[in-house]
């Protein structure tokens, strides 16, 4: 694991138990200042528990956390000055207007009245919410709520921003706007720690990614290095009706150079370093009594790397929280 003396976040041996369950089981990682760090895993993998420990909402049972060089076990409030947090829920106050919610967030960090009013107006403009500034938060759409929650998290100009599923369950336009704003914050030097179910979102935004499964980090690396094994490889997804009755060994014997695996009982995935031709494979399957519904060529992505490394189907992430890939 790479280490840095001036890490924005440093976690060592973090453990969190809930009864007999080890929700987080001894994880270590560093996030460099100005980095965009993705934390990917399915539901129950330990992502939110980790964020809670990093932000001071929960105490680790073992291990240590440093935020901006501050030991969080000794001085959690000092560390909280440096961070902004976007929860997985839009947790602002429904009775307050957008403007008042932002001003209140600023007040929590000790901003003076004029400074917080000025900053709130700027952020409402930046997030496309200026026209809804005086409307109650309860009247906002889901996408507007998520935007305002992010605006509230950066009211006090934090050095480090934690985001837990920032684009989950919102419209395409708001998601796109949020991704653009996060890229902008990253360019401005804010360190970002992102958990998401959307693997393509992480691929687009992050410079380093950690895959977490069962409370353990199974791999941490730069996006380029994670993608290296699949570069130049082609893939074909064959949807079947009634499952695959031909053994995979027989398929590999008949089509040398191709790798076969069943990503689901009705879905055959084929990979190769050579260009793939679907016709001969589909004919072979149909001759052997397998009903082919569709054969689709596709570009390999971080999702495939995730499946390879964690052994967890990205489909399961999709089912859990509407994640996976999207436009």
């Amino acid at each position, binding site marked *: 694991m790479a280490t840095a003396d001036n890490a924005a976040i440093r976690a060592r041996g973090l453990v969190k138990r809930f009864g007999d369950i080890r929700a987080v089981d001894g994880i270590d990682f560093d996030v460099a200042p100005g980095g965009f760090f993705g934390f990917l895993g399915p539901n129950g993998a330990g992502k939110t528990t980790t964020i809670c420990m990093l*932000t*001071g*909402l*929960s*105490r680790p049972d073992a291990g240590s956390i440093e935020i901006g060089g501050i030991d969080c076990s000794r001085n959690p*409030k*000092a560390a*909280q*000055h440096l*961070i902004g*947090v976007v*929860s997985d*829920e839009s*947790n*602002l*106050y*429904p*009775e*307050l207007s957008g403007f*008042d919610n932002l001003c*209140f*967030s600023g*007040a*929590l*960090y*000790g*901003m*003076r009245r004029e400074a917080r009013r000025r900053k709130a107006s700027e952020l409402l403009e930046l997030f496309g919410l200026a026209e809804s500034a005086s409307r109650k938060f309860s009247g906002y759409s889901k996408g507007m709520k998520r935007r305002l929650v992010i605006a*509230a998290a950066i009211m006090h100009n934090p050095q480090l921003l934690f985001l837990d599923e920032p684009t989950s369950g919102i419209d395409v336009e708001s998601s796109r706007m949020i991704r653009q704003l996060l890229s902008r914050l990253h360019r401005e030097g804010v360190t970002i720690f992102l958990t998401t179910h959307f693997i393509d979102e992480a691929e687009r935004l992050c410079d380093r990614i950690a895959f977490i499964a069962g409370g353990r980090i199974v791999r941490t690396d730069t996006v380029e290095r994670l993608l290296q094994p699949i570069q130049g490889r082609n893939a074909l997804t064959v949807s079947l009706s009634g499952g695959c009755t031909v053994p995979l060994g027989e398929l590999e014997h008949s089509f040398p150079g191709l790798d076969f695996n069943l990503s689901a009982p009705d879905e055959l995935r084929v990979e190769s370093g050579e260009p793939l031709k679907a016709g001969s494979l589909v004919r072979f399957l149909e001759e052997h009594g397998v009903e082919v519904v569709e054969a689709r060529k596709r570009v390999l992505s971080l999702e495939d790397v995730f499946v390879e490394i964690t052994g967890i189907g990205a489909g399961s992430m999709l089912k859990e929280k509407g994640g996976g890939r999207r436009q």
Partner: protein
Amino acid sequence: MKTWIAFWGIVRKDMKAYYLKPPNVSWGLLFPLAWTGMFLIRSGRDTHSLLSVLPGMIALSVLFGTSSMLAVAVTFEKKAKAFERLLLSPIPLVLLMLAKASGAILFGMFNALVPVLLGFWFADLSGADWGMAVPAVLLIAVVSTFLSLLLAILATEVFEVQTLSNFVRFPMIFLCGLFFPVTALPGFLQPVSFMLPLTYGVDILHAAIQGERLLPAALDFAALVGFCLLLFALCLRSINRHWIG
């Protein structure tokens, strides 16, 4: 300085979002008005009767004023994860909890004004010792607020906290000497009365308004302050254990 900006921010936000909402203000006025009016009509122009129920009316107004909104607001904020925002901010936990309590304390004291003003109108309060009554009202407001804060921390649902609050508040109406002396209770219930903080607050109010007391004022004040400290310590312990576990 920054911490105090956060502190007043929380107080102002709670006032705006909860306490100064028209339904809450009207409830805060109507509840003590209805109770006090009822007792005043029943007492006729008998000044002694009026003065004997006024301490109870003041205590009742403060008790319900402080506990009605705070417990619901805290439980609601916890459930909606809005309370997380406060826990994530750099304000120390002690000040954060005091800020949350302040709105309820102020609102409870505002409720106490209704029976006091009616008392001025219908009875002769020239002999009342306000130097003793006002601190007593403040301490009753603080202790009731911390009690309801503790219940809110322990409950997970709004209906749970409302049920718990009623189980605590209604017995206190009968056990704490609000409308008849604790000594008039059956012997086996009297020790229970002295385990409840309101008993000491009401005793101070009776002494300040009527000149009748059960215990020395210093003991009453000491007991109230003790209950305030104990309940606040329990609030901090519970929030540390249950919410930042």
